[in-house]
C-alpha cells in the first residue's frame, strides 16, 4: 500500500506578468523524510515555497495535505494546516526576546487578555529539549548568534505544530559546526514525524543529508532521485542542463610586480568583543588572479570593506605597489587604481533609478573627462556609455534606460563594464556572477581573465567554490577570519579546499 504524502503539490503553475515562475510543478514529501530541493538561483524554488506557505497564490494547480486538497489565501491558512517555514532572511524581531519571538501571533494568555510568558517559556523549553534545539530563552534576538537565531526560527515553526518544515537556504549563514548541528536537528525532526524540505542551490550539501532530491530548473521539476543513486555530476547536469564544469580557457599566469600587499590585517567588531579578521597577510601580483574561498561570514565582508576603503582596520597595513594606503578613503583608492565589483550589485554597485550612462560613470563622475566643476560633460558620458554597452554586451535600447529596467545579468554587466574599463591596477571582484545566467557567467569570467592577461592584479572573493577553482591562479581559504590554507590553482582539488573551508586543517602558521 502506497504511503500518503504529507504534502503534495500537483501541477502548480505561477505566472507573473513577464515570466512563468513555476510551470506544472509536482512535488511530494513523505513522512519521515528529508527532501532536498535543488536548483540554481531563479529556478523557481522560492516561488514554489511561497505558494506552499500561502504568501503567493498559484495561477493553477493544487496543494494536498495528507491527501486532502487545501487552499491557502495567506500564511495564516498555511500555518493552520501545519506548514512551517524558515526563511532565508530571518523573520525575527530583534528587540524582542527569543520566547516572545517564538510565540508571536500564537501567544498563550492568562485571564484578562494578559500574555502568559511563563507558560510560553515552559512550552518552548520542552520543545527545545525534545528536539535538541538549544536556545537562550530570555535573550534578545538582536544579541544572539546567527546559528541560534535559526534554531529560534525552527522552534517558531514547531511551536505552531508544523507538520512539515521548509528550510530555505539554511546553511548560507552557518559555520561548518553549526551546519552539522543543523543536519542532526533535521534528522531528529524527520524521525519525530516532521518531514523537512531543504532548499539549496549548492548540490554538495544535499548528499548525505537528504533521503531524496528533487531538482528544479527554469520553473520546472526536472526529476527526483533517491540520494543513494545521486552523484554530484548527475545532480549538476540536472540542475544546469549540461555538463556543468565549464573549464575556462586560460593560459598559466605570468605574475610580475607585487601590486597589493596586505600585512597582518586585523579587524575587531565595533560592538562586540570579537575578532572578525585575524591578522591576515597576503600579496597579489600583477598578472595573477588570487581567489579567496570560504563560507560566507568568515571575514570576507570585512576584508572587502577594508580593501575598498570603507572600513579602517584595527591594525595592520594595506599597500598598493609599495605605498601604504591604509589611511586613505574610498575616493582616494579609486583614484589610485583600485576597482571593485561589490558583492551585492543592487545595494552597493548601482543606483537603480539612474540611467545606464549615469551608472557607468559612477565613481569617475568628477574626472575631467566627464565633468568640469560646474557642468557635467553629458556628451562624453553618453558616448562612453554607448561604447561600454557595446563592448560588454549590455542589452538595452540605449544608454538612457534606467538600470532598474534591466535584467540581473545586464545589471551586473553594467557594474563589470564600469569597473573593468578604468585604468585599473587592482580589481577586486566579489561574487562577480551572483544571480546571473550561465551565458553572463562565462562572459564575466572571460573578462576577468582578460583583465589579468592585460597586467592587472585580480583578487576574487567568492563563496562559490567552483568559481574560485576555475579562475584562480592561487587560492586562499578564509576560515574564521584567518587564512587557513593556500594552494596554487593548478594543484587545488575540490576535496582539499572544501575541507579547508569547513575548517578541517591544523591552522597554518
Amino acid at each position, binding site marked *: 500500500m502506497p504511503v500518503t504524502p504529507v504534502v503534495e503539490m500537483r501541477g502548480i503553475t505561477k505566472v507573473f506578468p513577464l515570466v512563468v515562475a513555476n510551470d506544472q510543478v509536482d512535488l511530494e514529501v513523505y513522512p519521515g523524510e528529508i527532501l532536498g530541493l535543488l536548483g540554481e538561483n531563479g529556478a523557481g524554488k522560492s516561488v514554489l515555497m511561497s505558494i506552499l506557505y500561502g504568501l503567493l497564490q498559484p495561477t493553477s494547480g493544487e496543494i494536498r495535505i495528507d491527501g486532502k486538497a487545501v487552499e491557502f489565501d495567506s500564511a495564516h491558512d498555511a*500555518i493552520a494546516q501545519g506548514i512551517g*517555514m524558515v*526563511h532565508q532572511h530571518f*523573520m*525575527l*524581531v530583534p528587540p*524582542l526576546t527569543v520566547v516572545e519571538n517564538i510565540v508571536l*501571533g*500564537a501567544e498563550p494568555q492568562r485571564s484578562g487578555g494578559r*500574555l502568559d510568558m511563563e507558560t510560553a517559556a515552559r512550552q518552548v523549553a520542552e520543545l527545545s529539549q525534545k528536539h535538541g534545539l538549544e536556545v537562550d530563552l530570555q535573550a534578545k534576538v538582536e544579541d544572539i548568534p546567527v546559528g541560534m537565531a535559526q534554531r529560534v526560527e525552527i522552534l517558531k515553526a514547531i511551536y505552531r505544530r508544523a507538520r512539515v518544515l521548509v528550510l530555505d537556504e539554511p546553511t548560507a549563514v552557518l559555520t561548518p559546526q553549526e551546519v552539522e548541528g543543523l543536519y542532526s536537528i533535521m534528522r531528529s525532526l524527520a524521525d519525530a514525524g516532521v518531514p523537512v524540505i531543504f532548499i539549496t542551490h549548492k548540490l554538495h550539501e544535499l548528499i548525505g543529508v537528504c533521503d531524496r532530491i528533487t531538482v528544479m530548473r527554469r520553473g520546472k521539476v526536472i526529476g527526483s532521485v533517491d540520494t543513494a543513486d545521486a552523484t554530484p555530476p548527475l545532480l549538476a547536469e540536472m540542475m544546469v542542463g549540461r555538463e556543468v564544469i565549464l573549464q575556462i580557457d586560460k593560459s598559466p599566469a605570468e605574475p610580475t610586480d607585487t601590486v597589493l600587499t596586505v600585512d597582518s590585517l586585523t579587524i575587531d567588531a565595533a560592538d562586540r568583543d570579537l575578532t572578525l579578521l585575524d591578522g591576515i597577510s597576503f600579496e597579489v601580483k600583477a598578472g595573477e588572479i588570487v581567489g579567496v574561498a570560504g563560507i560566507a561570514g568568515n571575514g570576507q565582508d570585512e576584508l572587502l570593506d577594508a580593501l575598498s576603503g570603507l572600513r579602517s582596520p584595527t591594525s595592520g597595513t594595506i599597500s598598493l605597489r609599495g605605498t601604504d594606503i591604509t589611511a586613505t578613503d574610498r575616493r582616494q583608492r579609486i583614484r589610485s587604481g583600485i576597482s571593485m565589483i561589490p558583492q551585492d550589485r543592487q545595494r552597493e554597485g548601482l543606483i537603480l533609478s539612474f540611467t545606464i550612462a549615469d551608472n557607468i560613470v559612477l565613481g569617475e563622475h568628477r574626472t575631467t573627462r566627464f565633468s568640469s566643476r560646474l557642468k557635467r560633460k553629458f556628451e562624453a558620458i553618453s558616448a562612453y556609455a554607448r561604447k561600454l554597452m557595446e563592448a560588454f554586451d549590455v542589452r538595452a535600447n540605449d544608454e538612457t534606460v534606467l538600470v532598474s529596467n534591466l535584467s540581473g545579468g545586464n545589471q551586473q554587466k553594467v557594474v563589470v563594464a564600469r569597473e573593468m574599463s578604468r585604468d585599473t591596477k587592482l580589481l577586486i571582484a566579489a561574487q562577480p556572477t551572483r544571480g546571473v545566467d550561465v551565458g553572463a557567467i562565462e562572459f564575466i569570467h572571460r573578462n576577468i581573465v582578460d583583465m589579468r592577461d592585460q597586467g592587472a592584479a585580480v583578487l576574487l572573493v567568492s563563496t562559490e567554490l567552483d568559481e574560485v577553482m576555475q579562475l584562480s591562479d592561487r587560492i586562499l581559504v578564509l576560515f574564521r577570519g584567518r587564512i587557513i590554507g593556500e594552494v596554487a590553482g593548478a594543484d587545488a582539488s575540490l576535496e582539499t579546499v572544501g575541507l579547508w573551508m569547513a575548517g578541517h586543517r591544523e591552522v597554518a602558521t
Partner: protein
Amino acid sequence: MELLGAILSTATIAAMIRSATPLTLAAMGGIFSERGGVINIALEGIMLTGAFTAVLFSTIGASIGLPAGASAMLGVAAAVIFGLAIALIHAYFSITLRVNQLVSGVAINMLAFGITGLLLQLIFNVTGNSPAAPDMKPMPIPFLADIPVLGPILFQHQPIVYVMFLAVPFSAFLIKSTPYGLRLRAAGDKPAAIDTVGVDVHRIRYIGVGLSGVFAGLAGAYLSLGQLNFFSEGMTSGRGFIALAAVIFGNWRPWQAFGAALLFGFSDAVQIALQNAGMSVPSDFLLMAPYVVTLIALAGFIKKAVPPAAIGQPYPAEEPI
C-alpha cells in the same frame, strides 16, 4: 528666594500636572501609533479637531437642554470619536494607500486647521474664539483631595486629569503585557515577522493609529473644555509637537514619555509663574526648552533615543503587484 518659592509652590506643581495632561494623553496616543511603525505628526491636527468638536458638542448639548455636566461629557465623547475619525484618515492614507506618513500627517494638520476655522465661522459665526460652552468642572476626590500638599497637587482636578493618570499604566500594560502589545511592537520593528506568522500587519497598525486618535482627541477636549471653556483658532499651538517630543524623549515608552511630559509641563508652569511674577523675558527660553531638550536627547548626549526600526515604512515595502 521668594521667586523660587513662587516657582516651587503647590500651585505651580498642580499647574505642571495640568499642563502635562494634554501632553501625556497625546503622547500615549503617539506611542501607540509609532510603536506600530506609523509616524504621527498629525497629533497636532487631531488635538485641534478634538478641541473644536468638544466645544461644538458641549454647546449642542446645552442648546438641547442637557445639564452643563452632561453637555461637557457629550463634548468629550465627541472629541474622542472625531479624534478617532481623523486618525483613521491618517491610517487610511499612510497604511492602505501607502502615502508617505509625514506628508499625510502634514496634510491632516492643515486640514484640521482649515476645517476647524471654517466651521468656527460657519457655525458660531465668529473668527478667533468661539462663544463659551459648558466646561469640565474640577472633581475633587473625596478624602484624598484633603490631604495636605498631595491633595491639591493630585486630587483636585478635572476628570480628564484622572483619566490621564490611568492612561499611563494602561498604555504600559497594553504594550508590555498583552498579545496586542507584543504584535504592535513587532509591527513597528519588523512587520514581515508577524506577517509571516499569519498576523495582519495593517490591522495591528490601524488599531495603533486609531488609539492615537482616541487619546489625542481627548487631549484636545482637555484644552478647550478642561483648561478653558471655549475654542480658539489654532489653540493647540504646537502642543501636538511637544507631545511628539515627549514620545521621542521618552524613548517610545509610556512611563518615560509621562516623565518627559511632566518635565515639559513643569517648564510651562514655571514660565507662567514667572510671567505672573512680571518676568517675561526668559519665558521664551522656557517655552523652547522642550524642543531643545528633545534635540539634545535625540543627538544622544543624554541617552540615545532609538525609534522602532520600521517606523515610517509602509508594509509591504514594495508595492503589491
